[in-house]
């Protein structure tokens, strides 16, 4: 990015858009089909919304409980992902050790594991007859929801951050060290500021994954209104009894997800530009 583009205007003028360098036409067609494949179902659902009933549908006590619980647990899980995931990504990206590939594969396991299986695994550890023998009695409580969400969301943060750390390289860190900065100073003042965009996007991905968590939560935390019944669970239950409410709540979930992504993108953008 050039100096003038940065200082003169916050938005790039349309004329600076680079000329396309010959993407084949058939590729555009397939890409459009792909975009529609994603967009059409969501659009169809939006068309099904009963707008007259909408406020009533989403303000029932069980819906409000589910929405607030979802927001609370997802934000907590995102924070947990940051606290655990940043050190994990640092170790994977910066500390050479034997078996690093294996460790990475294990860390990414929740990504490929069916969520229900993840929930069973959590039960096997924390459950009443689990390995910890109920020493940490969290199953079927709100903390269990957070644990389940963190379990499935953590790989998203680790994966995106490790990639960014590798791409950024360790040259700035080496310079900082030769200037006399200790490892913690280097981490907080050089390494992490340089990968803030990746931390933000990793956190957004983790939050979105936590917000949508269903299988592991249901298996490990159950479905108690106000305690463990998050929005996805509520939607699934409502689908049986009141499909209109399920659709309305789905729209709320989409709106929350879009809002979070937009806010995070807006917050990350200046940093991204600064460090580009």
């Amino acid at each position, binding site marked *: 990015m050039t100096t003038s583009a940065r200082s003169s205007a916050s938005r790039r003028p349309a004329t600076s858009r680079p000329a396309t360098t010959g993407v084949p036409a058939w590729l555009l067609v397939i890409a459009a089909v792909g975009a529609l494949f994603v967009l059409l179902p969501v659009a169809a659902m939006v068309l099904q919304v009963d707008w007259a009933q909408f406020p009533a549908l989403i303000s029932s006590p069980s819906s409000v409980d589910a929405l607030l619980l979802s927001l609370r647990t997802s934000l907590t899980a995102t924070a947990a992902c940051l606290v655990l995931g940043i050190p994990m990504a640092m170790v994977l990206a910066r500390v050479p050790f034997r078996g690093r590939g294996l460790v990475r594969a294990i860390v990414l396991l929740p990504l490929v594991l069916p969520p229900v299986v993840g929930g069973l695994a959590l039960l096997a550890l924390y459950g009443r007859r689990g390995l910890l023998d109920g020493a940490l009695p969290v199953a079927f409580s709100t903390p269990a929801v957070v644990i389940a969400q963190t379990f499935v969301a953590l790989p998203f943060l680790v994966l995106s951050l490790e990639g960014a750390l590798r791409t950024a390289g360790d040259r700035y860190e*080496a310079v900082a*060290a030769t*200037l*006399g900065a*200790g490892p913690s100073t280097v981490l907080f003042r050089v390494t992490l500021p*340089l990968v803030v965009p990746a931390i933000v996007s990793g956190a957004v991905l983790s939050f979105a994954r936590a917000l949508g968590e269903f299988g592991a939560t249901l298996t490990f935390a159950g479905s108690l209104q106000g305690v463990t019944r998050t929005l996805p669970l509520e939607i699934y239950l409502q689908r049986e009894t009141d499909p209109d409410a399920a659709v309305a709540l789905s729209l709320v979930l989409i709106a929350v997800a879009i809002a979070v992504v937009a806010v995070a993108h807006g917050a990350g953008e200046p940093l991204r530009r600064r460090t580009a």
Partner: protein
Amino acid sequence: MSLRLTASLAGRGVSVDLALASGETLALLGPNGAGKSTVLGMLAGLVRPDEGAAALDGTTLFDLPSTWLAPHRRGVALLAQEALLFPHLTAHGNVAFAARATGLARAAARERADDWLSRTGAEAVAERRPAELSGGQAQRVAIARALAAEPRLTLLDEPLASLDVGVAAELRLTLAEVLADRTAVLVTHDVLDAYLLADRVAVLQEGTVVEQGPTREVLARPRHPFTAEIAGLSLLTGRRTALGIRTDDGLELAGTESEPIGAGMPVTAVIRPSSVGLHPAGSDGIPARVTALEPRDDLVRVRTDRLTALLPAAVVAELRLAPGSPVSLRVAPEDVAIAPD
């Protein structure tokens, strides 16, 4: 001796032994891949040698296999060819970062940053971010940052190599000022850097020091082809004859010896390109073939398979020289400096 390094790293074919007095600047010369940057890396703590030891002002930097001081505890700052300014901080923030790392409080660090930015002529760009700086400005800030860390040893890895000629010339003067009383090691390809910035030079070839000593002495009387090359001189090796030198490939030249040398002893002869006359092939002189022409302003360095000559561009054009042209070279005996090898 203030700095002493004896270390080897088999993986990069490096085995060096260097010493430097306090306040002196050492220029590390050598062809690409000779191991110059590896030596700097060892001193900075970024490259770990297989074995060896290094000490700086009485502090052991490493003494393998038992002792290894982490880079941030060495007081050794590294300035690379790229400025590598932290992109998320302003120029001033970058310099203050280094000052803070020495333990200064925030306000004092800001003051020291101001001071170094003005000493390196970068105060005007203090509040800019690295992406908004030209190459020369960025390198000025990088110099300020390195010195704000108050290093006991400053390492410079071709700090001017990526800059335009004019910018490099200005920055070279700045470096000469700020490095004057500092212990520093400078990797360079440029003989001007060596003359202006370094008290001593060490020539590195294939990972070992082949020549070292005071800058002027080494560059005026090179004993190694690479040294002669970088000093812009022609170097012949051979044996002493009654008149001068007979090279290993049979060339005989009359010369002047610096001290009496017995016939048959191994000697070197150093010849300045400006003292070599170049004439059409077939006339008197040493038959040679042009290998390369290197224009420098209005002069051309004419490299041949024997000696290098320095001629006005007009003369080169008149003689219609091109790589491969046969020529005759003449050099007066008083311009062939013969010394014991």
